[in-house]
């Protein structure tokens, strides 16, 4: 099949759906690759790089749409582009079918198959083609960079000769992919980061990225697993609680990054005008939800506005495009993985398997029918979150009581063991001769000393310990020496053999210990 990527014509769009790298991989699947001349320029890939990768460069968009059997794009097609679609052609791009019903109908009328990259279901197998996540990741990163660009201070705290610099305090609202990327970027720049999300199960992820989770004490928190890992609208009471929490944070934080989106709805307003008013002058709000109306009251899409009290509100909607090279590399890889799934035999023939969860989910028009919305995937996105156990901090009294209880139990055990031991000794003393008891005292004391001494031996010296105990257990030679002078020939013989092997033990054991210990060197 011929796979072609036209130049993006949407204003300000710098990304491209095919990179020289992804082209090389796609060709391995048996496909041919085409690109419109200059399509990759804005993302840093010139035509020569594509030619080197074996891609045919096509002179015009028209020619490309004509030649390509599969068109891969970033943005949804414009009306003009949709008209170029023809029967049997496949289009793979972002499409937003729920918002673009007219476009959907138009493409259906043209008879093309359309796969929407934004409809790839969120299951583990499809992660490699989840373009929303890769773009969100870039947006999160870029949001912090934009914030830093508009923020007049360091992120990291420093103590310099010229004075102390406090670290910037960053609040991230919404811990989806973009939010987590923002947390990661901000913490690695050295900021103090707090984060909030309506789904309590993400607290672990937030903490793993090095941020503090703002915990909202509210009974009826929602379970993100039910909605495929996305947030859903919250109840009015919950919203009140949430805003209260943000209001408390507003005077303290320097940078707010909002990423709260609810699929298929306008963005919830979470950072209200009065909160902006509470912020310190020079603070920055970056609104990643600007395209959907913004989380902040003051947000104007694609603009940077300054509030009356000097707070900068950034409402850009093209964060991924602002990092066109990185975004293109990731997006092209997502597309490439999609094509890999579509070409299971790697023979250059596309097999559109509507039984496959991922392909079915992404396909919005197939064989002249609108196939959107898809049925729910057979595999659930995320395993249902286990209810989080709240570990109650024991009160000081409880702690004390617990300590006392363990102490009592220990005392009880020790005393009862001593009592049993004492009773046994008493019994033994009744039957054993006095000379035996004298030796027995020595034996018990030696055991005690042994236990005390050996517990202190360093673990790394356990092998030398074994060797040296080996050597000194050769002390049994004394027994043989005491017997070797016996009048009985057989006893003398047995004793002589014992002396021989015990000596091997003693000498061998000590020498090998010495050899080992000499090897232990400090660096």
């Amino acid at each position: 099949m011929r796979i072609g990527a036209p130049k993006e014509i949407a204003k300000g769009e710098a990304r491209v759906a095919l990179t020289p790298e992804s082209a090389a991989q796609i060709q391995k699947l048996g496909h041919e690759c085409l690109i419109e001349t200059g399509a990759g320029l804005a993302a840093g890939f010139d035509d020569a790089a594509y030619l080197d990768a074996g891609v045919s460069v096509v002179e015009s968009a028209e020619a490309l749409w004509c030649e390509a059997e599969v068109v891969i794009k970033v943005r949804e097609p414009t009306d003009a582009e949709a008209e170029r679609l023809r029967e049997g052609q496949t289009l793979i791009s972002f499409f937003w079918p729920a918002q673009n019903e007219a476009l959907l109908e138009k493409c259906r009328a043209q008879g093309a198959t359309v796969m929407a990259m934004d409809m790839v279901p969120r299951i583990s197998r499809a992660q490699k083609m989840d373009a929303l996540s890769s773009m969100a990741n870039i947006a999160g990163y870029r949001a912090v960079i934009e914030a830093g660009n508009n923020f007049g201070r360091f992120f990291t705290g420093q103590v310099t000769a010229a004075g102390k610099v406090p670290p910037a305090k960053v609040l991230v609202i919404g811990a989806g992919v973009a939010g987590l990327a923002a947390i990661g970027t901000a913490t690695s720049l050295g900021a103090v980061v707090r984060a909030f999300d309506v789904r309590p199960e993400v607290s672990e992820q937030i903490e793993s990225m090095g941020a503090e989770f703002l915990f909202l004490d509210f009974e009826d928190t929602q379970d993100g697993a039910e909605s495929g890992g996305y947030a859903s609208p919250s109840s009015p009471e919950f919203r009140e609680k949430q805003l209260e929490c943000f209001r408390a944070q507003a005077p303290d934080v320097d940078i707010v990054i909002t990423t709260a989106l609810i699929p298929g709805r306008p963005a919830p307003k979470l950072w209200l005008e009065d909160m902006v008013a509470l912020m310190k002058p020079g603070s920055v709000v970056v609104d990643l939800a600007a395209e959907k109306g913004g989380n902040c009251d003051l947000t104007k899409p694609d603009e940077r506005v300054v509030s009356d009290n000097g707070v900068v509100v950034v409402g850009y909607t093209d964060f991924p495009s602002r990092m066109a090279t990185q975004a293109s590399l990731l997006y092209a890889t997502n597309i490439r993985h999609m094509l890999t799934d579509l070409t299971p035999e790697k023979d250059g023939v596309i097999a559109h398997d509507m039984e496959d969860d991922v392909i079915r989910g992404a396909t919005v028009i197939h064989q002249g029918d609108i196939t959107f919305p898809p049925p729910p995937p057979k595999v659930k996105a995320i395993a249902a979150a286990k209810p989080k156990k709240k570990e109650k901090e024991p009160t000081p009294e409880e702690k004390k009581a617990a300590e006392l209880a363990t102490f009592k139990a220990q005392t009880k055990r020790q005393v009862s063991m001593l009592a049993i031991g004492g009773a046994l000794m008493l019994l033994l003393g009744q039957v054993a001769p006095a000379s035996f008891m004298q030796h027995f005292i020595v034996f018990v004391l030696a055991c005690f000393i042994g236990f005390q001494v050996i517990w202190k031996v360093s673990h790394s010296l356990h092998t030398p310990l074994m060797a040296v105990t080996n050597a000194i257990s050769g002390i049994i030679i004394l027994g043989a020496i005491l017997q070797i002078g016996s009048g009985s020939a057989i006893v003398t013989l047995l004793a002589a053999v014992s002396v021989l092997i015990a000596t091997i033990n003693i000498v061998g054991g000590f020498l090998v210990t010495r050899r080992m210990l000499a090897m232990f060197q400090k660096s």
Partner: protein
Amino acid sequence: MLGQGFVSAAAIAASVLFILSLGGLSNQEKAKRAVWYGIVGMGVAVFFTAFGPGIGGYGWLIPMVIIGAAAGTYLANKVEMTEMPQLVAALHSFVGLAAVFVAWSADLERRRVLAAQAADGVMQEFSAFAALVATKAPDELTFLQIEVVLGIFIGAVTFTGSVIAFGKLAGKVDGKPRQLPGGHLLNAGAAVLSLLLAVLYLNGAGFWTLILLAALAFFIGYHLIMGIGGADMPVVVSMLNSYSGWAAAAIGFTLSNDLLIVTGALVGSSGAILSYIMCKAMNRNFVNVILGGFGGSQGPAAEIEGEQVAIDASGVASALNDADSVVIVPGYGMAVAQAQSAVSDLVRKLRAAGKEVRFGIHPVAGRLPGHMNVLLAEAKVPYDIVLEMDEINDDFASTDVVIVIGSNDIVNPAAQEDPNSPIAGMPVLRVWEAKQVFICKRGQGTGYSGIENPLFYKENSRMFYGDARESLNTLLPLVD
């Protein structure tokens, strides 16, 4: 001839020196001095006993000591550090055998003295031990007999057990658990029979009972250790270490010699503590290890998702070049492949490049307590970067690269995550928390215990297949 006073003084001095010698092992530098305390203590003990009152037979004694010393020196200089477990096991067997011989001799002496006393009714001149026996009262003689039985039994079990342990460690006996049909019932039967023989002996039966008793104990030692697998050898060797001590202590009672009792007790408790530490590190109890086999699991083990992804030397090298902190987790596989000096070269190179390199040692890594430490020390790895499990376990989360060389169960996350795993609850090195884990392994397949290791299937794990030494040698030139 030295008087009894000298002998007693020497015994006190030797006891103190032995205690100091063991206590000195608390730290590497002190240990180098401490071993001399042990040597001097032994020298004092042997010299003063040998030239004490009533000792004869120097015509036998001196040549035997000379031959033994020569053999010991030869052995100590020749042994490879990877062969330490075998050597230790072999030396235990000597103590066991000597204990059996000395106990037999003690009974022969007792019979000789009693016969002589019955024959002429007058005190005749006996040499050292026989003289002591001659002075004993009847109830003391009964106790002496009990001690003889104990000495023989423990000594004989130690002897054959150590011989089998030696064979398994040296690869001369199959390392897998093997038992005769009847299993532990045979052991129990032999033990009951031994008890019966002991009762017969105490009631005046002939010397044959002691020979038979030793034979039965020999069988128990053999059969018990045959039933234990290779990876449990650390426990077995420490247990035999303990037994050799108790055998010496039992002989000490027989001969009424306090120095033997003290030393035997020291060694016995040392081995007991080592066994305890090893069992704890495997989260198994002692009986469970000795009787062999893993504890019952409550259900099917959790299924493992994912696949083992292989990586080549250049991939590992580039990760190492990018890493700041590296932890190496060696296991028995490193010893088998003799890879310790290759590891040491790698460590030197990485440290020269300014990276933080450390070792994480699990208590049961290898076939002997502390085995890995000795191997690394031999390869000139400084001991202060070789850390214990508890010291390093919390640092894995902040480690860039972990290299696992020839270990399996001690890095198995199932021990903590899967309550149905046969090794559930065993403390393990949490290597999977690191950013990347490379597992140096001969091939796919499970380790000694036959337990699947989910670590190999984790997203941040890569399998570096091949012989450990060869793999590391191909890796070395690629690291800069």
